[in-house]
């Protein structure tokens, strides 16, 4: 029983990072109605920018954090130009294929620049382990959970209380209606893309700082986790992205404990499979099934 709860805690922490990854995917998908397969590799660029700063000048956590987020945003801006801005809006498949190509390109670039198998990333080791009765909470897990909660609250505020947020929502609700309402679709799309990249950068930083070492596999890993969490939670729903991330995190932590690493992978994909069969709308599906059907049709 204690194991079960302890796993749950660990799972929720890592799950909140998955949730952030899924949020990034969802923001881009909601506004563009297109999948950005290069999302994980943009984060990879950010993480290695942070690691480089760490290795070169033994920089502190804050500059490394800034470099990670900035790297992810810059790489995403490149993806946005190549795979989204210059490809027509109705050619969703072309965007996805193109972003896949950019993914390979970015990953290869990072692999060339950083030829070793893995690099060190600074951790929060100085912080003490938190004790909650019989349970332990790693400080980096607590940081993950808190950061995710704060970011989600801030994002919610941004989307519901500001004019920029209203613009983003009009775009994800109905693109043509947004255009005839005078929304500068291109500008809002670019800003949303940047916002998603920044959120992904934060998630990447938290994950790297928890593991303490990074490799070029992280890009693919982040894309997989984010996509799976998004699909489990429900395509196009921000709340769904978060819930999907948490569920994925908890299931993985339990499976890792009881079944081992290979069992964990089996459970992850079994969960994805079950979600697609039993809850095709996701755990928190959008109310408007028509819009969803249209969104799916356009992929």
């Amino acid at each position, binding site marked *: 029983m204690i194991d079960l709860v302890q796993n749950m805690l660990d799972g929720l922490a890592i799950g909140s990072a998955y949730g952030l990854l899924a949020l990034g995917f969802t923001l881009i998908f909601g506004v563009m109605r297109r999948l950005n397969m290069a999302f994980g590799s943009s984060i990879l660029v950010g993480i290695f920018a942070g690691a480089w700063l760490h290795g070169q000048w033994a920089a502190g956590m804050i500059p490394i954090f800034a470099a990670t987020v900035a790297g992810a945003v810059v790489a995403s801006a490149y993806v946005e130009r190549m795979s989204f801005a210059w490809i027509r809006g109705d050619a969703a498949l072309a965007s996805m294929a193109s972003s896949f190509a950019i993914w390979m390109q970015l990953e290869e670039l990072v692999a060339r620049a950083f030829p070793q198998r893995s690099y060190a990333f600074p951790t929060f080791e100085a912080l003490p382990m938190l004790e909650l009765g019989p349970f332990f909470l790693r400080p980096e897990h607590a940081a993950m959970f808190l950061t995710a909660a704060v970011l989600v609250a801030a994002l919610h505020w941004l989307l519901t209380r500001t004019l920029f947020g*209203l*613009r983003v929502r009009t775009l994800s609700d109905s693109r043509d*209606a*947004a*255009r*005839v*309402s*005078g929304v500068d679709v*291109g500008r809002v799309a670019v800003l949303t893309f940047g916002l998603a990249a920044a959120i992904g950068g934060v998630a990447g930083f938290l994950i790297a700082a928890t593991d303490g070492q990074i490799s070029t596999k992280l890009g693919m890993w982040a894309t997989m986790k984010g996509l799976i969490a998004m699909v489990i939670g429900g395509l196009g729903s921000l709340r769904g992205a978060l819930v999907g991330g948490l569920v994925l995190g908890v299931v993985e932590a339990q499976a890792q404990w009881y079944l081992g690493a290979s069992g964990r992978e089996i459970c992850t994909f079994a969960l994805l499979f079950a979600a697609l069969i039993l809850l095709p709308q996701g755990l928190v599906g959008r109310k*408007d099934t028509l819009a969803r059907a249209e969104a799916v049709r356009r992929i």
Partner: protein
Amino acid sequence: MLEIRDIRTSYGKIAALKGVSLEIREGGLTCLLGPNGAGKTTLIWTIAGILKAQSGSMRLGDDELAGLKPHQIVEKGVVTVPENRLVFPEMTVTENLVAGAFSRRRQKGDVAEDLDAVLDRFPRLRERASQEAGTLSGGEQQMLAVGRALMARPKILLMDEPSTGLAPIIVEEIFEIIGQLRDEGRTIFLVEQNANLALDYADHFYLLEQGHVTFGGDPATVDHDDLIARAYLGARKAS
């Protein structure tokens, strides 16, 4: 007020507008009639900047609209009420209306004032102000789409088939609103299938057939039945 000259728009290789010229006159209701597939909606989307014209010009006073982006055209005061309403279904009525004022940026108080004016004009929308637009009836959504366009303080309202998919009694109601807007001195460009009703309200009309304007005039001087037969049945009777 808006002079459209020789506009050509195509979808890939298929030409939809093959050189359309017409004029939307200030302070009146100009109506565009024509059968399905004539290119009426294409013309609206072209004026709105969502479709790009291959050639031709659209002059609003001294401004050339051709080549501008959709949001820039809204900023110039040419605002579309799209076909099938196209409201934001997952946003509240109020949010939908505020979205209509995006092009204005400035003057927060003014937006609140206009919002109030629109809600006064459409009391049914006031009752449902905090409801999601997707839960409204078709007629209410049409009112919302008109209200959203008014929030942009338009110089010209482009209305694309406001009667589509509405019950006849609701269509009457929508046309009363259109008549009211016309009587306030607004400039309206109306595209409509329901020619009978549209001609009752129009000050001027054009007939669009297969991408060409083939006829135009003052509804008072032509036989409506004749015109409608020509527009929708392909009868080539001289009028």
